[in-house]
């Protein structure tokens, strides 16, 4: 099963580097250059994880989160924010959303490896949740039919 990661970043350099780091993982990278594109892509593609930059043209990361948090998908898709904004005010604002993790750019080699690990964990997490949901459904079905 190939997982799809939506990389939302207007910085093509970071995009290219990340692509290389994830080369050996079974992932498919979809790039959005701003929040608006991301909103469109997240609806149309089967996204398993969102990697989000904050400072972007058109619709920035904050705006994206605000909009995205209203959708059903928000509850399902883990989000990792990767931004060079490192002041408390911004981070606090972001942490109000249900995000999986926050990494501060620029990333060096070690931190990129850690990010890749986080990405893997986040996708696993999403799978586990999905499986759990499925299992609960089945259990519910079984128990209701049993009680009948």
């Amino acid at each position, binding site marked *: 099963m190939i997982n799809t990661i939506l990389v939302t970043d207007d*910085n*093509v*350099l970071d995009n*290219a*580097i990340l692509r290389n780091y994830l080369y050996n993982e079974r992932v498919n990278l979809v790039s959005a250059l701003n929040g608006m594109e991301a909103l469109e892509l997240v609806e149309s593609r089967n996204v398993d994880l969102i990697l989000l930059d904050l*400072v972007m043209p*058109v*619709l920035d990361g904050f705006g994206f989160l605000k909009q995205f948090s*209203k959708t059903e998908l928000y509850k399902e898709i883990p989000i990792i924010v990767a931004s060079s904004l490192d002041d408390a005010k911004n981070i606090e604002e972001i942490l109000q959303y249900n995000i999986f993790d926050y990494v501060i750019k*620029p990333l060096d080699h070690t931190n990129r490896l850690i990010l890749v690990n986080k990405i893997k964990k986040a996708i696993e997490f999403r799978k586990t949740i999905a499986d759990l949901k499925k299992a609960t459904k089945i259990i519910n079905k079984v128990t209701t039919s049993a009680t009948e």
Partner: protein
Amino acid sequence: MDMSQYLEIFIEETKEHLQGLNQSLLQLETNPEDASMLNEIFRVAHTLKGMSGTMGFSKMAKLTHDMENVLHALRNNELKVCTKLVDVLFKCLDALENYLDSIVNTGTEGNNEYTEIIQALNNIINKKHEAEEVPVAKPSAKPVPAVAEKEVHPTSDFSVNQYEQNVINKAKEVGMNALQITVVLNKGCLLKSARAFIIFQTLERYAEIIKSEPKVQDIEDERFDYEFTVVVISKESLDLFAKELNSIAEVDKVIIKPLESRAVENEAPVNVQQEKPVQAAVVTQHEESKTETEETPSAKAASTQKPKTGKTVRVDIDRLDVLMNLVGELIITKTRLEGTDIISNPQEYNETVEYLERITTSLNDAVMKVRMVPVETVFNRFPRMIRDISRDLGKEIILKMSGEETELDRTVIDEIGDPLIHLLRNSVDHGIESLEKRRELGKPEAGHINLRAYQSGNNVIIEVEDDGQGINTERVKKKAIERGLINKDVANSLSQQDIIEFLFKPSFSTADKITDLSGRGVGLDVVKTKIESLGGRVEVETELGKGSRFVIRLPLTLAIYQALLVLVGKEKYAIPLSSINQIINISPDEIKMVQKQEVILLRNTVVPIVRLANVLDVPREDKVQKQLTIVIVRKGEKLSGFMVDSVIGQQEIVIKSLGKLLTGIKSIAGATILGDGNVALIVDVNSLV
């Protein structure tokens, strides 16, 4: 981790961003209130910081970081845009460009820390803090907006209740505008709420939103048809909102009308009584709105301009499709040829070959088009340059550019920048008079320079025109006589055009007292040589006191051109036809020796002879020729005769570079593959004359 593989992306991206920043900064300077431009600049600076951090260029990152701080302060209205500040920011860009150059050349960012720039940036920030300590009388009277939204009464029609009317009245008292803005979104808009969110964000940058219909919550939850109306209070004008909102994508229409302050009985005790005057107000406002709506479309046309950033390789997909089609036809023709028997069916064979010829011609055109780049890429940097020079010289100059979309071959584009800079500099420096002089002459204080590009036939024409003092031909003539280029009698018979030609003489421009002349002449020969090496021409038109115009004509492409094939010894060489003046046959005894240089006399002009066999080190054949073939070539004003063994003929050749191993070889400009598969070297006329 090896980052070098990303260096190319980094360099390309950074170049683009810096170019964009230069343009945005210029626009910000002329329009300091433009918050969207400021945001754009901030964002790009931020991206630059991120990228240089990623690549480990810490000095660049530091500089962009400090730059970002200043921009941040600007964005928060803690600072105001002024020329001094913009100057510092421009210096930052220059420093970043230097870093980039160093990265391109050496792979490292170098050692320069640009402490003085960083210091200047920090000074700006510190001043901001000082300013904060002494509270400047800020435009007071904030119209208590946060509370307003909560108190909006649920009304289905759009109307302003008493509370809001009070807010509007107050705003009017302190000189702010109250505007009712209706935004209609495109019917195809998929993410209405997100779009609305962007619109609200834009509005909030300039204004306080005091009312929204449907309510903000409903809009966020997408419970609205494609339009909504808000009432805002702002210091900004109606035009700004029209411009800003129209630049947002998927916005179909923006209707803005100012709301008037209206007498509302402030302490009216009973609710029922209030409604009447408010209703009346609404009716009159609707009438006003009609006149306003008509204004918006024109504002829209003028607005939606944002600096475009070009990608490294940008080929119109249509052009690739054309190429693809042609290649398809090529393959079909190949199969057709395979199936044709030359002997039994010579006619079909000939037809196919003819068809093949047509395809190759079309292919040639199509590929040529792919190589075309808009001159915009060169023009882009001129506004900034003109700004800097004119500031240095204390002149006011308006640069108008047109035809930036005109396309030229990549090879020409790369070469044309310097000559154009030269001409523009000349215009600013020598063409446009000083402020005082312009005032005296009754000319508008700001000098105008027009830079135009357009295509005409197989040429692209670039014009640099100024409304300065023009060229004083009398003084040029005097100078030419002084320098012994002509004698007095000849001088008087020369036409104005002939006199202007002197400006392009190398000896003229290298003269020490050129700046004493009425201007012009500085390095114009360099411009001319460069343009001619590109196969182009330079012309000048001038009128004393009115201005001058330099016209550059360039061929559309350089990759394919006509050449003369010649034989030197047993080797074939190609000489570009554009630089050939004529071909003559002489007998050996016509060659004379002057100052150890072989020359011939050609219609009373002394032409030096270059024996190509010697220069190119071709094995000599010991036979005495009774007649020598001389190809006369021209470089700028200079003539020179290339001695060859024989002339083969004219041919269209495709230039190939010699490759990395053979760079820096003088006298050879490249190579071409001939019809028989042999390689012929192309003689570099410029280096031999």
